[in-house]
């Protein structure tokens, strides 16, 4: 489903964020991505969702070479991917409901369906009672969960999560991880970047480790 072939990414400043990274993630895999701060985890995810293009190498998603995706097809590509952003990326002038509904509005669901799905997603992350709250009145962890609800509400084929449990207590963290596992069980490909080695090693999934842009562990499929 996600296929990197000797992918390198050099930022304009000359910094190599990724160097010759190759790996493959199968359709119903759940994979963790770890590494020190600055190792290139977010960069790798940005390449998958075409916020950036690889400098060298080939990124394939569901058999499609991303280098061949034209600019105007990027939105469609992104609609197939649910993303939990490291910095939340919420609309702070809209209530929680509207934030979570955004991907559905973009995809053009009718209002009843939107309401139904948004509430189901909020229920899953335990925020059903915050539907009308503004994001700024929420705690960091609650904001993060709004981001998670938004990522899963459109039932994407691929779910990327960049530090989804960064602001959550251990109990909530493992609940959220269970949520991701549940998604994975119905066929969603899940890639989670996380520092929380204790948590992710307990969960017994494949772990990709980046160090200064190089993949040092987990390249092979198990």
């Amino acid at each position: 489903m996600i296929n990197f072939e000797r992918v390198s990414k050099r930022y304009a400043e000359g910094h190599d964020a990724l160097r010759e990274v190759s790996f493959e993630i199968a359709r119903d895999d759940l994979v963790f991505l770890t590494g020190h701060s600055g190792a290139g985890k977010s960069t790798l995810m940005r390449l998958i969702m075409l916020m950036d293009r690889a400098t060298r190498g080939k990124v394939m998603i569901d058999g499609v070479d991303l280098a061949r995706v034209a600019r105007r097809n990027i939105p469609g590509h992104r609609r197939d991917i649910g993303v939990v952003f490291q910095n939340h990326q919420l609309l702070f002038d809209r209530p929680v409901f509207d934030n979570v509904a955004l991907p559905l509005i973009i995809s053009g669901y009718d209002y009843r369906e939107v309401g139904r799905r948004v509430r189901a997603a909020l229920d899953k992350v335990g925020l059903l009672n915050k539907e009308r709250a503004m994001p700024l009145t929420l705690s960091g962890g609650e904001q993060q969960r709004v981001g998670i609800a938004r990522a899963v509400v459109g039932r994407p084929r691929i779910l990327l999560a960049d530090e989804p449990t960064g602001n959550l207590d251990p109990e909530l963290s493992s609940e959220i991880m269970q949520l991701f596992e549940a998604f994975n069980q119905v066929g969603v490909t899940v890639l989670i970047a996380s520092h929380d080695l204790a948590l992710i090693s307990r969960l017994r999934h494949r772990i990709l480790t980046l160090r200064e842009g190089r993949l040092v562990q987990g390249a092979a499929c198990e």
Partner: protein
Amino acid sequence: MNKPRLEGARQSRTRFADRYNAWLRHHRLSAADSLHRVLSNKLSTLMTFLVIGIALALPVGLNVALDNATQLSAGWDSPSQISLFLRDSVTGEEAAALATELEQRPDISAVQVVTSEDALAEFSALSGFADVLASLEDNPLPNLLLVTPTTGLEGAAVGGLRTKLGERQEVSEAVLDMEWLQRLNSLMELSRRIVMAIGGLLVVGVVLILGNTIRLAIENRREEIVIVKLVGGSNPFVRRPFLYTGLWFGFGGGLVAALLVTLCLWFLRAPVSQLAALYQSDFTLKGLGLMGSLNLLVLGGLLGLAGAWLAVTRHLADIEPR
């Protein structure tokens, strides 16, 4: 919640209708949302409406004024008359015979005979010099024929007719008092062009003002645009609310312009009809009318859309998630 995404062929059959509905739904949502934003920002919205309204009202108002002037002068210019002053030797009977002869011509619709006696009587009645005139031995006034050319005859043809009639031996002088009308007409044509030029400039100004307003709106919502693009919003999707914002601003400006023009006309109505009464005319000012106002509204909307389009194509594509 975790239904599989693909539900088979049934889904693809309704897909077009679904997409159409979704498209329509987002149009409604964008229209409502941007209208809400425009109206909730009362003061700055009012300012924008006024600026656009004034800029549109100026040329439109001038144009309405010109239309009124044209209407007024049209009353004068169409049946231009040729006055044939006959020689003193021509008697009243000869004048009447000449009149019937001339009336046969295809380029003349009517000939009115004003005999020298009629003219004298009318003159003495109007002037109040009856006593003086009565004391004159001879009637100093000639017989006069008032010739009305066929309606629709062009100015040059009327001029030709005048020359031809003037060449007849019974006629001492043929007068066509139309030159001032031609001058007036060319003056009006000139004014109309000046108004059009001013209008063109102001229309460009309106588009630029609206473009700038929309640019600011885009700038204010930069973060939101980034997020919408991150979760897969296409350019048309992001564009739509801003286009509607431009449309609403344009409509508002058009409405203000229509109100301003109507207000001005209402303000001028009383003195104008007073003036008209003095000239024994039943002339009344003609306003924009319902159609004119609606056209102004549509024009405003189109200009708003144009301005928004300008801003959106220039600035929206630059905003990409980083």
